[in-house]
């Protein structure tokens, strides 16, 4: 085929251009360390790289989230540790205080030690994290959750919510426990306790309120659980003392019916609860043994008409466990002198109730602390999984878009040779002309 001079020139320059642009491409790859510089170099790889990038970013997000979750949970856990210590100390003091050889003055000094523990418990309950947010207020973390009200009791101002954080793709972890869970709950299976005093039901707050102290000197021991499968097990009961027409003391066990919010004298099977004449039912040990709803309690001493003993389930909604109220009651009873039988009985009974309450509170705090520990462990495991995943993503990303330097450098030399060859060919061809020989 006939070749024109223009074709010779154009072919050579086209070849030069092509070699140069390919050479430039390889040097660009080497300089950036990337095989895929523009999406057009490998559209599938570029698009998948976007996806892998996103997965990496999400994994990083969760890692950050785990850091702050761990902070919150670890702080809660360490505060609960201190609370545990405080409750154990309080229990020890109460055991000491229940010795009969102590005088009023001795008891007062124990009361002041208890007061110190009480104040420190309030301080721990109102602990903040480093940013000034209260740990145990639920969602209401901008104000102290436990506030002393005018009547000297501590009220909970927070709410019942738990803040969660997303620590992994499908795991929302609660990162704080609220005040109700820690200080105003009991673990399941906590049993029953008894409290002496005159109680009425306040419908507005759905709680039992004490509105008077017993005048007699009845003390109780127990209550013991006899039969958890009893139909009435779980209800709250009350032993009500009255006097009949002849002036004899009578007692009536009543059950609190949550449906009607009243005290009923029958159980759920509509059978009569234990009642009768006090003096006639004393057993050979000198105490009145009562059994109802699967629970048994022994009463000793002589009551006055109108005295009441509340026998409530530990986690009852109407009695509402409250660590601070327990401490307040213990301090009150230790501070006042026990100079008459009624007060002595009140001292015995209140210490008994308070020790049971503290046991339940201790179990509860330990349980919550255990769950915090479990969560910290889980965070560690998720961290390990997450960092493995991150490694995988980095590897995948590198496989997709990074340059294989060995390949690239040998291609670079190849292209360099190609370019030099094209340049040489151009020079040679230019020199071939018939006019040179004329």
């Amino acid at each position: 085929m006939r070749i024109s001079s223009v074709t010779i020139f154009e072919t050579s320059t086209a070849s030069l251009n092509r070699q140069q642009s390919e050479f430039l491409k390889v040097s660009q790859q080497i300089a950036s360390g990337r095989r895929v510089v523009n999406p057009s170099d490998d559209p599938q790889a570029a698009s998948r790289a976007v996806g892998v990038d996103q997965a990496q970013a999400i994994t990083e997000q969760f890692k950050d989230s785990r850091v702050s979750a761990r902070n919150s949970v670890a702080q809660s856990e360490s505060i609960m540790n201190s609370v545990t210590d405080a409750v154990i100390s309080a229990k020890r003091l109460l055991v000491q205080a229940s010795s009969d050889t102590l005088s009023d003055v001795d008891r007062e000094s124990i009361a002041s030690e208890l007061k110190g523990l009480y104040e420190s418990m309030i301080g721990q309950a109102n602990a903040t994290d480093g940013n000034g947010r209260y740990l145990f207020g639920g969602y209401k973390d901008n104000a102290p959750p436990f506030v002393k009200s005018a009547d000297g009791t501590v009220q909970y101002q927070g709410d019942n919510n738990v803040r969660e954080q997303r620590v992994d793709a499908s795991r929302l972890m609660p990162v704080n426990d609220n005040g109700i869970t820690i200080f105003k709950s009991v673990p399941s299976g906590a049993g029953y306790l008894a409290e002496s005093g005159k109680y009425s039901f306040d419908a507005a707050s759905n709680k039992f309120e004490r509105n008077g102290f017993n005048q007699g000197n009845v003390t109780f021991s127990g209550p013991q659980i006899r039969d958890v499968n009893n139909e009435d097990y779980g209800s709250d009961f009350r032993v009500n003392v009255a006097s009949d027409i002849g002036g004899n003391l009578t007692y009536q066990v009543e059950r609190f019916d949550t449906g009607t919010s009243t005290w009923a004298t029958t159980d759920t099977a509509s059978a009569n609860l234990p009642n009768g004449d006090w003096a006639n039912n004393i057993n050979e040990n000198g105490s009145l043994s009562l059994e109802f709803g699967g629970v048994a309690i022994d009463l000793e001493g002589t009551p006055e008409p109108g005295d009441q003993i509340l026998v409530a389930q530990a986690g009852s909604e109407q009695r509402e466990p409250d660590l601070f109220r327990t401490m307040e009651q213990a301090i009150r009873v230790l501070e006042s002198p026990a100079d008459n039988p009624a007060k002595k009985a009140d001292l015995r009974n209140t210490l008994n109730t308070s020790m049971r309450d503290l046991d339940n509170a201790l179990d509860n705090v330990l349980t919550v602390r255990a769950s915090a520990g479990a969560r910290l462990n889980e965070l560690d495991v998720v961290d390990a999984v997450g960092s493995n995943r991150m490694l995988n993503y980095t590897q995948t990303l590198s496989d997709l878009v990074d340059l294989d330097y060995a390949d690239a450098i040998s291609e670079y030399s190849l292209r360099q040779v190609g370019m030099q060859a094209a340049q040489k060919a151009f020079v040679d061809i230019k020199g071939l002309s018939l006019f040179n020989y004329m």
Partner: protein
Amino acid sequence: MSMFTIGLSGLNAAQSALNTTSNNISNVYTPGYNREITILNESTSRGTRVEDIQRQFNTFVAEQLNNAKSQSSALDVYSNQVTQIDNLLADRAAGLAPLMQEFFSSLEDLASAPSDPAARQGVLGSANTLSAQFRSFDGYLQDLQSGVNGQIKDEITQINNTTTQISYINREISLARAQLGEAPNSLLNQRDHLISELNERMDIRLNIQDGNTYNLTLPNGQPLVTGDTAYKLQAIESPNDPQRVIVGYKEGARGNGNVVALDEGLISGGALGGLMSFRSETLDKTQNQIGQLSASLAVAFNNQHQQGVDLNGDQGKAFFNLGQSNGYFNANNDGNASVKVAIDPDNIDALRATDYSIKVTDAVSTPPTFEVTRNDNGSEVETSFDAASNTLSFGGVNVEFVDLNTAQTGDQFEVQPVRRAAGGMDSAIIDLDKIAAASLIEREGDLDISQLSAASGAFTSNDEYGLDVDNAGNLTVTSATAFTITRNGDPFDPATEALAEGDVVNIDGLSFTLDSLPGAGDTASLNISRSDASAGDNRNALALQNLQSQDIVGGRASVSGAYAAIVSDVGNRTNIVQVNLDARQGLTDQLNAVQQSESGVNLDEEAANLIRFQQYYQANARVIDTASTIFDTILGLRS
């Protein structure tokens, strides 16, 4: 005949041949030059004569080459333009994906510390950066649009120049043919060269009439050059979209005809065709995709933000602003209706990355009927029309007609819901307290429902609603104030009607879907109340963060998935164009070589010709010399 005349004829021939050869040599690099060869023939009266200075030009090869050049030029222009978008998406560290990731990461910080001002500021900061990047992307693409508009105008000016020149040359050639019987080669070369240049600008059809006259037409048959008359193209605003420059054709050669808009897909070859293909295939689509991404993100975020409460206790307001959706009436409409376009925030899943064309199929019926097609694939979409507000709804878009009663059958409208959405994306919140990290709705109860959400303005009249539903679907509502309740959009009277499974119930702006009715003899209850705006409540922040994993773009892809799709589309398109260009270029180079082998000058060949014709001249001169010597001999006989 004497030796003199014979020799003379040879000399003349040699001179002519040498002239031709020197012409070839001097024009070796002239673009459009076709080499000439001297055709010698035996003269009838002995000797030789120059039959013709024949121009070596093959019409068929020329036509093939012009077509190939037209395709290559189109692909070349396309490739130049699309590479700009490719380069824009190339930098993985500075693109949209890392900024979106940073935005969601800042939401994670907000979820861990909802009332912390530093975390809130982080969210605002990253939202602003993200919006700025969306705006800059859209700005870049919009610049490309203006660039394409400008280049179309330039190409059309050049095309008009060329067609005018071709018409002049046609005239010169026909005059020369009339005078001299044949046209000078230089004029023919010039005309063919102009036509080759014109083919590189746009694809045209060449019609050679009587083997002599060149007539050019558009691909649809409309004449461009007829003899010595040139028709003009004009760069006009598209009747559908005043911001778009398209090619118009001026009927009537003397400049006094109408300008008719040419269909955008008509011209597909040459630089002009490349520009138009690039614009309608890639640029519009990429701009719409970026717009759809920003619109989906903004609307989904705004919807979720509305489900939250800010630090002031108010329901969350719109977090992002979006660019306006555009709607245009066709300039050729007989009626006077116009359109206002808005994205429907409740139907964001149906939003697609395309423009739409609306045609009024029947303007006189009540309600009027419309036909709506997607511009990217021409398929028709289902619509629903609300006669009370004159609003046509389809594909996540609400189109409100203004002065609909003046519209005529056949009127057309163009709707661009997401084209400029990214260009106006902005964060609407500047006050840290207004970020709604806490949840607005507290829900209690065992009624089986899903998709509980609050519209803007919920809980304004009342803070709490109690609903009880029994097995038959009878509903009792407890509310401190009067309320309005709808079921599936229609008013519902709880006293007379009953609910069924799957119903969407809306009470004073709070809506939910009833998944199942309670069992026989049971009554399930639902208590919806406004939550307290606690500082530590991070539920809405968690939900906002979770948007990154949900399929919010078109109901099918997450935001990063949609972005990866854009990268893949552009990368694929660039790749395909480059591959096609290389293939076409190879073909064009081949055809070039064929054409050059026929019409190109080879300097070595001409050098040999020079030597040959020089010898020829010398030989013929020697003939005359010999004849002269013979004559002298005869003359010298007498003495």
